[in-house]
């Protein structure tokens, strides 16, 4: 079955009715918005259904929409983004589950695809999204004892602490950062008129 807007929406709505929040297409890539609590069942269905047969979970990552231009203030801040790949049908699909700041909890899909293990650990480490049911949700890339979630938009680029060797105490110590971000190119936004001119 070729993936089109209608086939995706039709099959998923038939199975999950209200749970599917929307299907969109951009540059030939399909994105399905799924409520976080349904993500595990939807993933299992997408893996096992012969029309979809997504046998690989290629990636899981977090996105923080805090600073996104014109993003509605009441909309949930984080998204967990899943990239699926079907080897037998040669098609891809993106799933998005939005979660709010107060309770950023998404059910884990480790029991659906084993590859989710480290990807979910990374999204937890970088964004603080909690994957419920993950067997071993530890930090993965940050330092042992790291505080905060580095890829959140309110986490400064230069961080909060830096490490140095203290010769007096004869060991490595943490201290507040002494550097500031050097940003020479301001962030500006696309304006039709400018680009056409």
């Amino acid at each position, binding site marked *: 079955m070729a993936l089109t807007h209608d086939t995706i929406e039709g099959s998923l709505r038939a199975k999950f009715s209200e749970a599917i929040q929307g299907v969109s297409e951009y540059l030939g890539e399909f994105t399905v918005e799924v409520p976080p609590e349904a993500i595990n069942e939807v993933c299992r269905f997408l893996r096992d259904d012969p029309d979809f047969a997504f046998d690989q979970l290629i990636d899981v990552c977090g996105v923080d929409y805090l600073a996104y231009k014109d993003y509605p203030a009441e909309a949930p801040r984080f998204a967990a983004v899943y990239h699926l790949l079907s080897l037998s049908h040669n098609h891809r699909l993106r799933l998005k589950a939005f979660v709010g700041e107060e309770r950023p909890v998404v059910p884990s899909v480790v029991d659906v695809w084993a590859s989710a293990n*480290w990807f979910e650990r990374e999204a937890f480490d970088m964004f603080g999204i909690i994957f419920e049911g993950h067997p071993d949700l530890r930090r*993965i890339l940050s330092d042992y004892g790291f505080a905060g979630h580095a890829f959140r938009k309110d986490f400064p680029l230069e961080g909060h602490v830096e490490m140095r060797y203290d010769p007096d105490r004869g060991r490595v110590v943490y201290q507040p950062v002494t550097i500031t971000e050097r940003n020479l190119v301001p962030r500006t936004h696309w304006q039709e008129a400018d*680009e056409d001119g």
Partner: protein
Amino acid sequence: MAEIRNYTLNFGPQHPAAHGVLRLVLELDGEVVERADPHVGLLHRGTEKLAEHKTYMQALPYMDRLDYVSILSNEHAFCRAVEALRGIEVPERAQYIRVMFDEITRILNHLMWLGAHAMDIGAMTMFLYTFRDREILMDAYEAASGARLHANYYRPGGVNRDLPGAMPKYKPSKWHSEKDVEAMNAWRQGSLLDFIDAFVDYFPDRIDEFETLLTDNRIWKQRTVGVGVVSPERAKQLGFTGPMLRGSGVEWDLRKKQPYAVYDRLDFRVPVGTTGDSYDRYLVRIEEMRESVKLIKQCADWLRNNPGQVRTGDYKVSPPPRAEMKTSMEALIHHFKLFTEGFHIPPGETYQVVEHPKGEFGIYMVSDGANKPYRMKIRAAGFPHLAAMDEMAKGHMLADVVTILGSQDIVFGEIDR
């Protein structure tokens, strides 16, 4: 009698066979691995966050520092993501140059892997041979981009500049006589394409040499056959891609299945393993090098006969030629805008992939309409491979951990990002 207990062993981060900075916590029962827990992140630089604070052109060199042995493949994925979102047309010649350098990169990566992997297992000589041949390809990198390693050669909309018409030559010195230098410059009389042609003629025999040393070598086989076996079903479950997946017998190559650039016009085959052990992954990579040589040959032939543009003519995303800037106000403004503010990308998101030497390398790019990425996620090929370490090493001997790690072809630049 003394009590027998499991003990925990720290493998790395300062260990020559850890391929960089891997801290592997091994739980051993005697010499048998019960549990392997890789601790990664010692090389974490936050590339994804850094890129959010840089314009698209400034973020490009960070790609070189991800997987630092397959530099141009990383850049290709990044350029493809930017091109898709902004709708940039890439000239045909640039596509061929990219494919040629992607394949050169694949050979560079596999040579590095072969040398290091063989040395880990005890075949010291391989390292010397593979690094001798890597040097030739690095010279090709240098001639095209000016840098041996961190090339920064691809650009959204093409490549930085056309292939050079002449190769740099060695000069006689205190250490090299006229006669030596003449031999060293033998390949360097013509253009870069002639140099690459000479390599294409030279290299297949070298692969045969590598194989005489390893393929039927009894020790090599004892160390790799049946070590780290992954079934096709498990390989899919674990998110394997590239030679790791093909070694397990799944015929999947993005160059064939989801062709990008000009791969659909080129003739090559995809080697596939049968048993999914370390030895099969070795055979797959060796075969891939042979196929890459064929691809390089086809691209070089095409490039020789088809001169043309190597960068898009859209001056919003690509700088205008130097000469034009001297006379045209318009061109000068474009140049100034491009190198101060950069270019904007309309709001949207995309996930673009390339068949990286290690597997599927993807860039998930989210733009909110700014001149910098809003969010960029790098899907590193090696990340899920290393995640499978525990499963692959369980029940094997301590020495086999090194074999498995080597056969996964791990580079920490891309795993830690």
